[in-house]
């Protein structure tokens, strides 16, 4: 026997005692665990619950659909199309380069887009999605979707993207949107959060920029549950945003496209204004550009090409461009003189081809002189000397005041980019800006729309409309917003003497319809649609040399303003062809073609043209029909 009984009993006693001690210690420890558990799960539960929700709930923005833009007939000018893009979240991707390499094996990645993405990846926070490929086809998207397990952090996304089905036709009016950039920040009073959506598109130019606040809409939000890698597991709550407001323009797509095509190849601008309502039915700056290039951020070579083009496609010449109005300003001088009573319409002024003022010789464009010129003839044949004389009699203050009444030298309130004020000089202006005294020669120059006078094609159209109607017609480009009609620009009576106006209009009629008129070559022979106009040629250089003998940049600007039909003015039109040479040769034919197109609402019958032009016009019409922009199809895929 190994163990005496007593030994065993003793041993058992010791074991029992110590076993109970340890058991007690264990019980104490477990009590501690239970207390700790209770403390965390009951006392601190709310705190931890909050942390848990922060972990799992992520609030995602739902970008609103941007308001659409229609033309006056309801044709779509700016729309939203579904756009598929591939994004990558660097934090989830881990080795970004490796993931992109794998992605490149599945879909074709545009090298330039990729370069931009890599730049974005460097700047972006680790948890923001960066677009790697934009405008991806549905096939590519599905291929990526199927392979997501092998592409951590990569997500195919469907969004809405802006699209301009009319291409360049509306580039300068509607403008374009582009990805939000930091420099847009101060311009926009946008809710900060929306702009954090990668590549969120905001208006950059034209109506898109001016009506950004209405067009953008309000962001919705959704609360989603995400897993530890940021993948959305399910949607918890959704609050729909508010889509942007639709905007309807006063412009007419048919005419707009015609004018764009008609001006193609020139550096030019044209504006067609409805005399009744002030509606701008066409407003084109040529050459144009494709606004769709800007939507996702324009590529450097594309932008460089636009910048380097000497015809300057980017600015809206019709609204931003200011030119000496040249002889188109003569109506202003004439009307100012008539209203001031400084000239009698029947009175003649002798034009020997020049006028000496303050020992300076001011030439008439016709060196041989016009002889005896009355008001009617002075406009019809655009005699300069007659207006030198009127300037001396009437004074710059009267002329400038009249110019302002007719819509020059004032900034028309249009939701377009950089609407130019132009310039109608006064003595006070010269003192203030040039720090020099007004001299009589300044008045003489201003009287024929040279010197300091500057006006945009838009202002010239307004001037023409006011001359045609006697009302202060004001331009508008927005017909309605969200179905609410904007006030028209019909305007009040200007309080001008109707007789004086009639004389001016008749003289303008003669410009286009009298055999001796400067624009007789570009007349309309359809009696119902006869037009009244005025040519202008504004000097770019001081020396008088033949236009054909100098380089393009030094040639004169060609201008033409007109309204039609003469009896019941419907449209006022202005055309400026930069460095086009003479107004009668370069601008008037364009204005005539546009007028007919506007009045007929389609290609006019050849019978409206003088017989000798018809052959040329027919081929021109065919050519234009061929090149005019047709709104393209749905175009949702990779362009």
């Amino acid at each position, binding site marked *: 026997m190994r163990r005496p009984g007593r030994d065993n009993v003793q041993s058992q006693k*010791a*074991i029992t005692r110590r076993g109970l001690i*340890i058991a007690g210690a264990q019980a104490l420890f477990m009590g501690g665990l239970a207390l700790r558990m209770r403390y*965390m799960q*009951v006392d601190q539960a709310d705190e931890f619950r909050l*942390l848990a929700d922060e*972990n799992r709930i992520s609030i995602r923005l739902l970008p609103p659909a941007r308001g659409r833009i229609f033309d006056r007939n309801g044709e779509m000018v700016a729309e939203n199309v579904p756009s598929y893009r591939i994004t990558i979240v660097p934090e989830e991707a881990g080795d970004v380069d490796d993931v992109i390499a794998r992605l490149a094996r599945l879909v074709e990645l545009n090298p330039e887009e990729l370069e931009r993405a890599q730049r974005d990846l460097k700047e972006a926070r680790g948890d923001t999605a960066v677009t790697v490929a934009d405008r991806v086809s549905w096939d590519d998207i599905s291929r990526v979707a199927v392979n997501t397990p092998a592409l951590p952090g990569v997500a195919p996304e469907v969004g809405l993207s802006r699209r301009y089905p009319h291409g360049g036709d509306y580039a300068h009016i509607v403008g374009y949107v582009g990805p939000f950039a930091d420099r847009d920040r101060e311009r926009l009073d946008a809710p900060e959060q929306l702009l954090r959506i990668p590549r969120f598109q905001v208006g950059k130019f034209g109506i898109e920029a001016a009506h950004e606040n209405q067009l953008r809409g309000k962001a919705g939000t959704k609360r989603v549950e995400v897993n530890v890698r940021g993948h959305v597991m399910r949607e918890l709550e959704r609050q729909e945003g508010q889509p942007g407001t639709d905007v309807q323009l006063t412009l007419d797509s048919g005419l707009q496209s015609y004018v764009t095509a008609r001006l193609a190849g020139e550096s030019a601008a044209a504006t067609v204004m409805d005399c009744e309502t002030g509606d701008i039915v066409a407003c084109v700056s040529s050459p144009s550009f494709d606004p769709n290039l800007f939507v996702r951020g324009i590529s450097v070579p594309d932008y460089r090409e636009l910048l380097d083009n000497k015809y300057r496609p980017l600015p809206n010449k019709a609204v931003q461009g200011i030119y000496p109005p040249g002889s188109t300003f003569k109506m202003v001088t004439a009307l100012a003189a008539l209203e001031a009573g400084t000239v009698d319409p029947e009175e003649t002024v002798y034009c020997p081809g020049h006028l000496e003022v303050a020992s300076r010789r001011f030439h008439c464009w016709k060196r041989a002189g016009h002889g005896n010129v009355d008001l009617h003839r002075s406009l019809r044949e655009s005699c300069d000397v007659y207006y030198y004389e009127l300037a001396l009699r009437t004074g710059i203050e009267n002329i400038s005041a009249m110019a302002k009444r007719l819509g020059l030298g004032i900034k028309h309130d249009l939701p377009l980019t950089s609407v130019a004020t132009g310039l109608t000089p006064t003595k006070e202006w010269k003192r203030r800006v040039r720090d020099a005294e007004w001299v009589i020669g300044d008045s003489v120059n201003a009287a024929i729309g040279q010197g300091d006078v500057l006006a945009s094609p838009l202002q010239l159209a307004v001037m023409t409309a006011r001359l045609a109607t006697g009302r202060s017609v004001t331009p508008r480009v927005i017909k309605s917003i969200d179905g609410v009609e904007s006030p028209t620009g019909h305007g009040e009576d200007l309080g001008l003497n109707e007789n004086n106006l009639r004389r001016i209009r008749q003289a303008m009629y003669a410009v286009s319809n009298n055999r001796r008129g400067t624009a007789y070559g570009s007349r309309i022979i359809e009696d119902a649609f006869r037009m009244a106009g005025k040519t202008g040629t504004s000097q770019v250089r001081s020396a008088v040399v033949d236009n054909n003998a100098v380089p393009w940049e030094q040639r004169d600007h060609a201008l033409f303003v007109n309204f039609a039909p003469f009896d019941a003015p419907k449209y006022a039109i202005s055309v400026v062809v930069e460095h086009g040479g003479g107004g009668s040769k370069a601008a008037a034919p364009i204005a005539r073609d546009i007028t007919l197109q506007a009045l007929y609402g389609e290609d006019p019958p050849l019978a409206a043209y003088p017989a000798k032009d018809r052959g040329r016009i027919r081929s021109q019409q065919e050519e234009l029909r061929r090149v005019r922009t047709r709104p393209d199809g749905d175009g949702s895929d990779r362009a």
Partner: protein
Amino acid sequence: MSYLEYTVKTTPTGLRKVLYLNWPLAILLTAVASVGFLMLYSVSGGSFSPWAEPQMKRYALGFAVMFIIGLVPIWFWRNMAGVAYGLSILLLLVVEFFGTSAGGSQRWIDLGFMRLQPSELMKISLVLFLAAYYDWLPLKKKSHPLWVLIPVLIILLPAGLVFAQPDLGTALLLIFAGATMMFFAGVHWAYFAVVISMGVGLVVAVFQSRGASWQILKDYQYDRLDIFLDPSSDPLDTGYHITQSKIALGSGGWTGKGFMQGTQSRLNFLPEKHTDFIFTTLAEEFGFVGGFSLLLLYALILLFCISTALANRDRFSSLMTLGIATTFFLFFAVNMSMVMGMAPVVGVPLPLVSYGGSAMLILMLGFGFVQSAHIHKPR
């Protein structure tokens, strides 16, 4: 009179042994394991694969192991204790030289069908061997320095090998379990006082040696210590485990978010949600009620083990059962402390609940010895 004599007459034989099994203990173990199945089912998103089903099979195997071991007389196991200890030491040496390297430490032998962790096996072997030692040692020698030194070496040899793997957590568990065994056996208080002060000294040394040429722990172990002391210092890396674990656990509240509604675990914010951190999922989905219930089950298991140990007049059985109970206690106490942010992340599974075959089999093996002691106790 032989040792066997007083038992032979009253010890059940043959299939009658089944009736003498400690059935309450077996049922409690199954209940705890079932909690495990439930949670594994939940963390895999309501699916038996990939975790719940293999776990159930392993438990069935473990239960069979416990059953078979329980039917074998306890004196056979006592006689095998030395062999078990020797074998475990051998396996630790094998692992030291031929083990598969994983996570910077060599811990297991790949047997093909399972990965055997000799350190796990050692937890049981050490208990058996120490129980056998004190069963053999005459009572009056138990506090004699020489006879104290021997069990200390018995403990430190495997602890040193495990520490060299390196697996600080398990090494400390071995030392702690061994020391508790010595305490049960009645070694004089003074020795424990000395050891505890040495332990404090070691902790100081560990921190003092940091960065010095004689640095005791590996860098990542220091990092874990740092993060244990201040989890927020590294919320995205190692401290992430503790922070996320606390968030999930705390957000459970009184009654939890409901079965399979635990957002933190389902959304993968919880690391190791099916292994070391499975208690968090339980606490998140069933709240304080759920967590406390599991703690209660564990307490009952301990209670049944301790009561059968104290009722057992056989010294080996008594010590061994207390030792197994202590090992079991250390498992869940360390694991729970860890997920509640009260202990560093040391990689100790929640016993019978965490997914993993090795730990579960070893534990069931241990409970097999407890059952054997219970069935074959002197009556």
